[in-house]
Every structure is written in structure tokens, then in C-alpha cells.
């Protein structure tokens, strides 16, 4: 019960942090952690299928794509500053 409450509270807190943290990189890291916590919550609710899909797709592939996007935007910014 306490674990469930902690998991739920951390989800809300992480969701709040994603939109308020400021930099893209940090927001992406928070998003990945959010996906992992969400998959833990699905596991606690007994929905193992959703937990697997969330961990692999929502957190893994989407997180990696977002990280790549952040690095791409960073490279664009450097190019722009050079010009």
C-alpha cells in the first residue's frame, strides 16, 4: 500500500517535473524515468502486457528518439551560432 502510494505520488511529481524542468535534455531524462515508473505502476495493477509495452516502446524507443532529437537540435544550435 505504501509502495503504491509512493509510486503514484512519484508519477505525479515526475509529470510535473517534465513540464517545469526547463532544459530539453533534463525533460527527456525525466520522461524516460516517468515511463519506467509508469511500467512499474502497470505491474502493480496486474497489467503485465501494458507494463512490457510501456517499458519497451514508451520509455525505450521513444526515449532514445527524443534523446537523439535533443542532440540534433543542439547540433543545429551550434551551427547557427557559428554563422
Amino acid at each position, binding site marked *: 500500500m505504501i509502495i503504491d502510494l509512493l509510486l503514484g505520488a512519484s508519477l505525479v511529481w515526475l509529470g510535473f517535473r517534465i513540464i517545469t524542468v526547463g532544459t530539453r535534455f533534463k525533460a527527456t531524462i525525466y520522461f524516460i524515468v516517468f515511463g519506467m515508473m509508469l511500467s512499474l505502476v502497470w505491474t502493480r495493477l496486474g497489467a503485465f502486457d501494458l507494463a512490457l509495452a510501456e517499458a519497451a516502446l514508451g520509455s525505450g524507443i521513444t526515449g532514445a*528518439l527524443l534523446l*537523439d532529437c535533443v542532440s540534433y537540435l543542439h547540433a543545429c544550435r551550434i551551427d547557427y551560432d557559428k554563422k
Partner: protein
Amino acid sequence: MTKNNLIIFFFCAVFIVLTLLFLSMPSFEGTISQQAAHQMDALGISHPVTAVLMYFRSLDTLLEVAVIFTALCGFYALYPRFLHTPPQPRSIVADHFTTLIFPVIAVASAVLLYSGTFQSGGAFQAAALLAGGIIIIKLTRPLSFAKTKAHGRKFVYVFGLLVFVLLGFVSLFSGSFLAFATGSEYWQILTVETALTLSLAATMAAFFIMGIERVKR
């Protein structure tokens, strides 16, 4: 009260309301879903999620796969033509790591696919795992898959959808579209799931790989 405090207060209120709602949820004993779960033992696929995906709402699953395929078509339409794959120096550690890890991933994916018939698992989860394996190969060896024919790759993308629709038409003989005949439904569904796993894994990996390959700037 500042704006930030107001937001925190709002989130806390939402959290408490959701917790109370969750605690007051009725149990499923004696409801119609319980009865459906009891009847499930007679079917070839005993896991409720796979049964819902494949027996009750198989048309939804088919269209879900079609949606993913349509997204891939959009990706192809926006895909830059002049690709530049940077020839990175191959790291020995990453190379050996890939050689070690990919067979494990492939076997784990097959286990997930098979376990979808009686416990959590199934085509989508197995495909996600396999896609992760393909992405690891592509990241450690940038030139792999470069020599595969474009037609072959496109065939892999549509393969799952094709098998699904074909089996749907086969089941027309015994009833209606996608109404799998009793008796052979286990093997039909395992065939569909295997084809879907291959296709979806290729599609998801393609999303990632096309995303990270870009025009030479």
C-alpha cells in the same frame, strides 16, 4: 498564493481524488467479465488479453497494425533522399557485445511471443524487444542492412498485415471475416502473431533508424 504553489496544490488534489477513486473501485467478482474469464479455459488461447486481441476484437487488432503501417508510409514520404551514414570506427567492445546480446534478445522475443498464448506477452511485446535488438545492431554496426534490397524490406513491413488479411479471408469459408474456426484457431493465431512480430519489429526499428539517419549537412 503564488502560481507555482497553486499548480502543486492542483496536482495534489488530482492525486488524492484519483487515489480515492481507485480505492473505491468495485471488484470484478460476479460480473460479466468474470463469467467470460471462466469460459476462456475452453479456448485454445487461455490468456485473456491475447484472447481479447485475437478472438473478440481481431478486426481492431488488424486495423491497429494497419495504423502503424500507415505511419510508416508517412515516414517514407517525409524521408530525406540523400542519406549520409557516417562511417564510425567500429568499437571492439560494442561489436562483441552485439554478438553476445542479439541471440539472447531473439530468443527472449520468441519466448515472449509464445508465452502470449497462456500468460502476458504476445506479438507487440515480442516485436518491441526484437526492434530493440535490431536498433542495437544498427547503432554498433552502421553499415549493416545497407545492402538489403528496398523491395525486400518493404515486403517485410507488409508481411504481417498480409498474413492477417489472408487468414481473415480463409476464415470466410467457415463463417465470417476473421472469425477463426474452432479447432485450428491456436495455430492460426500463432501464425498471425509470428508474422506480426516480424513485421512490427522491422517497422519499429525502421522508425528509429530513419529517425537517426539524416541528410548530410
